[in-house]
């Protein structure tokens, strides 16, 4: 699984990164988290709001919608992989 967080360094972006990292450890997923702050790369995903959670190049969340939602998205991605 390939996980990316797109953000420009605001509070919400930072907290999404730390939430994702925490949840990956808890769910025992073997996936590195990439924090992308390069504006050109963020734009290439066609989004205008940050933070954005990208799993396997699929946008799964725009804006920080809470740790529970992130957990559900990670769990779902892990299940489909199996």
């Amino acid at each position, binding site marked *: 699984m390939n996980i990316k967080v797109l953000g420009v360094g*605001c509070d919400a972006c930072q907290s999404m990164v730390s939430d994702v990292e925490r949840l990956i450890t808890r769910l025992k997923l073997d996936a590195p988290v990439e924090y992308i702050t390069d504006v050109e790369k963020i734009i290439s995903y066609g989004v205008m709001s940050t933070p954005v959670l990208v799993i396997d190049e699929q946008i799964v969340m725009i804006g920080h919608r809470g740790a529970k939602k992130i957990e559900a998205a990670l769990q779902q991605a892990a299940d489909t992989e199996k």
Partner: protein
Amino acid sequence: MAQTLSSQTAQPAKHNQSLKAFAIVGAAVVLWLVLYKVIQPFANWLSYGLLGLSPASHLGSSLAFFFYDVPKIILLLGGMIFAITLLRSFFSAEKTRAWLGGKREGVGNILAATLGIITPFCSCSAVPLFIGFVESGIPLGVTFSFLISAPVVNEVALVMLFGMFGWKVAGLYMVSGVTIAIIAGVVIGRLKLERYVEDFVWQIKAGKSGILPDKPTWVQRFEIAWASTKEIVGKVWLYVLVGIAIGAVIHGYVPESALVSIMGKGAWWSVPAAVLVGVPLYSNAAGVIPIVHALMEKGAALGTVLAFMMAVVGLSLPEMVILRRVLKPQLIAVFIGVVALAIIMIGYLFNLVM
């Protein structure tokens, strides 16, 4: 077959869930109204009854002011931020961009400035939003109208002005904010400053995925609104407390009309001075308003106060640093200059007519 069965059983469950959510929100609204009604008698009882202070004394009047204003403003912030973010969940930057597409100057500026109030926006998204707008062909001036209006009409400032000055001043603040965004956007558009946008912006080809965030259900909208309310109130309550405490001291101890000579209508330099002082105070809008409120009671003029307010929320250093990634210094300077001038003009206008 199994799939249709499961979806049939899922439907009523979902229905129940949203009924429950509406019930919770409804109960919260009732509780909120009751609390709001009892604050004033409670504050009076606390300071004059329980503490036995006289309403005529400095301490008594300061404390009653504090005990009334703190719960009132916190309640107002909670309730209204919830309502505003709920309303905002119906809008998104992507929808706003679609609405602005193909609008010419003028109409576009008005629409952009208006949408700036209700589109969810955080200054950290300013860069992707700027590129997204410009790259889809929205004129620079129209983009700026949005970028100015979004932070200038700040929800916390709006609620606090409403709570402390009433709906007229809050309304004036909103209308002036939109007006400033329209004027500044038109001016920036006319100046033809496209060459001062960083070159890479014009080369970017954004992913044409056209992804819209999922349309949220009512339960999700409530959740989003509740999460933002907690976040915003959690961030500002301390400033509110400190600001109201300082305001209460001014309210009780500073003599009437002590400030007329330095912050009244007669002092022409007070509007630009208010803007200069306001710019570095970014993010402290919550703490600044109660102080300003107390100052106004002592003779400061409304235009000066509004100018100060808009400078505090509209021109912030962190946002300029973020925008520097896409704008050359010349354009940043024009941006700050035009917005500051517009704020000063509005300040004078109010001092003149009110």
